[in-house]
């Protein structure tokens, strides 16, 4: 075990930082630190810039066009991007479907789909959850019936993030209703422009549009768009979910959250001094800071296991549990720090670049919306209760 950074790693971090300084648009960076919502272009421009640099598929092996970085490089890359205020890389292409395609797809599929994912020329979304299949994902009902060289797909996906931005969707569909639930599922790639696909927005409590219902009405999908064998989609699904759970611990973003919380506390007035002079509040910051550091070490441990050739195991569920709890706690503390001025509802300050001055301090407008929005973290990507079931069964043998 060696936790010290080698000189070449420091040089690597400097290189990444210089690239971000040169490339990330100031307006996008400003949105990050103001807690504003990004538009599609903010994400796409940034991801395409990373793509041109060859860094977007930063976890991929060289063989498939990744940079072939070691665990330390990936760790540094993620941290520098978060520190510098880069938008989160939307995971559906590069973190989710990409690895599924190069692991389970055939050569023709790799050639056809991987370049657009690496360059972010093609945006993806994830068709997993359904109205009747949330925690019980294997209960999914979206049906794909074979018709010659095609499948005819009917059904509905829901809570589909960024479906309104996506060019393609990867879907779990039921190809065989007469076998065990997990055995009748296949993994299909669908062009969002195919006739019969309808996207209906779901507007969140803060007015934001991130998620959607997606309806499929006799959608014709070539059999060539199936990844892996028919009926073996559950294997792809689980592989992908393990990757998802690793990513959504969001440690670098939480580290930025701790720094931002400290900054807020230093400027928020209290009894003629600042909130940072209040030992009770400072203790709360220290506590969450320690939790983030402990989670970071756990994540590094998991990553180094993977680097030695292991796949992410069921223990990544613990990272998802702790990561989501930490995100919620940080959002709660930020709202607490803002105090009374968390009450004004200022959607204009979140969705647009505006010259209007906010009501209260600059950090006030996103505080309450973010607090409410972060309630989702313990539910999405497999609820924390489901993660605990996995750990209890697969790790503890209960």
């Amino acid at each position, binding site marked *: 075990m060696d936790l010290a950074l080698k000189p070449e790693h420091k040089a690597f971090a400097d290189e990444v930082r210089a690239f971000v300084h040169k490339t990330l648009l100031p307006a996008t960076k400003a949105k990050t630190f103001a807690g504003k919502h990004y538009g599609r272009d903010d994400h796409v421009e940034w991801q395409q810039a990373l793509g041109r640099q060859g860094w977007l598929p930063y976890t991929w092996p060289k063989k498939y066009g990744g940079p072939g970085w070691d665990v330390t490089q990936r760790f540094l890359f993620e941290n520098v991007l978060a520190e510098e205020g880069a938008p989160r890389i939307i995971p559906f292409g590069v973190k989710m479907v990409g690895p599924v395609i190069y692991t389970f797809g055939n050569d023709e599929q790799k050639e056809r789909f991987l370049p657009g994912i690496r360059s972010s020329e093609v945006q993806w979304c994830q068709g997993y959850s359904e109205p*009747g299949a949330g925690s*019980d994902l294997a*209960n999914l009902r979206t049906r794909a019936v074979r018709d010659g060289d095609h499948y005819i797909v009917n059904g509905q996906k829901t809570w589909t993030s960024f479906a309104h931005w996506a060019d393609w969707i990867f879907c779990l569909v039921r190809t065989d209703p007469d076998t065990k639930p997990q055995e009748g599922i296949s993994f299909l790639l669908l062009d969002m422009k195919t006739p019969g696909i309808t996207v209906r927005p779901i507007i969140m409590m803060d007015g934001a549009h991130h998620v959607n219902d997606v309806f499929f009405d006799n959608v014709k999908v070539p059999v060539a768009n199936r990844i892996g064998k028919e009926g073996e989609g559950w294997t792809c699904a689980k592989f992908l979910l393990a990757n998802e759970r690793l990513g959504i611990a969001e440690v670098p973003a939480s580290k930025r959250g701790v720094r931002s919380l400290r900054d807020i506390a230093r400027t928020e007035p209290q009894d003629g001094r600042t909130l940072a002079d209040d030992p009770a509040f400072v203790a709360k910051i220290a506590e969450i800071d320690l939790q983030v550091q402990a989670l970071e070490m756990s994540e590094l441990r998991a990553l180094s296991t993977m680097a030695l050739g292991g796949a992410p195991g069921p223990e990544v569920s613990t990272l998802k549990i702790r990561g989501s709890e930490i995100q919620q706690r940080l959002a709660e503390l930020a709202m607490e720090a803002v105090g*009374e001025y968390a*009450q*004004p509802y200022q959607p204009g300050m979140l969705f647009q670049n505006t010259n209007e001055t906010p009501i209260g301090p600059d950090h006030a407008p996103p505080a309450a919306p973010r607090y*409410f929005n972060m309630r*989702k973290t313990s539910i999405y990507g497999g609820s924390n*209760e489901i993660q*605990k079931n996995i750990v209890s069964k697969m790790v503890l043998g209960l």
Partner: protein
Amino acid sequence: MDLSLSDEQKQLQDAAERFVRDKYAFENRRKIVATDRGWLTENWTQMAELGWLGMAFKEEDGGYGGGPIETMIVMEQFGKGLVLEPFLPTVVLGGGMIAAAGSPAQKEALLAPMIEGKKQFAFAWLERQSRYNLADVSLKATKEGNGWSLSGHKGVVYNAASADNIIVLARTSGGAREEKGLSLFVVDGKAKGLTRRDYPTQDSLRASELTFDKVSVGADAVLGKVDAAFPVVEEAVDRAIVALCAEATGCMDAINAATLEYIKTRKQFGVPIGKFQVLQHRMVDCFTNAQEARWPARDWKCSAARSHVIRLVADAIALMNGGYLKLLRGR
């Protein structure tokens, strides 16, 4: 000790429950939110007719002789529908301070029409630097002839746009954060030199930032004694906190009931999710917390503990409803 409600109090509870059921179905509430002022005159008039605006005040002040229990009974029901009419700023805070500190002339001019539903109030105490310190007030009121001149800023003033009068906490003497030297002024909502920036709050109520630029008021605008307003404000805010806790308790009951119904009907893994022990235990925690949050009669001191309990329930509910978290207001 008797913690049960009297027959009259039970009738009040029934009437308030009916009001919320009839007027505050979720879609109705949305429509009210979308109106100009964010509340309905017909609802306010009905509250006056039902006697709710005067029930907590003494008969000699034109009220009906009730007290904080009556306030809590209606606020609890309001919480079930997140009622939008400005009961808290007008009746609990404004009316409460006028009843506690007002002269007979002020009570006649302000409290009596408020009870009839003809006047509304707002209470302006917070400033940018105040956080939760009620005495951290720097808006200055200086002597001007027989009257006073007010200059400074107030923030997050609920109902300021609809209020006929704004009750302003100002510094008349003393240093920063001194409890002594604070005074209350009744200012016309349309006074010259008073400007507003209005906005909705997270829970769709209305509030404003207020700027006072040499706003002149007469000597009769002082509510209570000059320099001695702090105890009046402290008591009014305590009553408001208790009222908010009662409201949040009603809100908890409503979301607990909705969640209980949901986990009995939502199926995963072939069974209602309420069959899973982990959710059963969480639901029991929510139920227990809601029980503990019930207002134990006349004790006002437990409000801090109660808001903690309310937050625990909100978090648990968010999980079980898969994200359909209703917004809780409270401090």
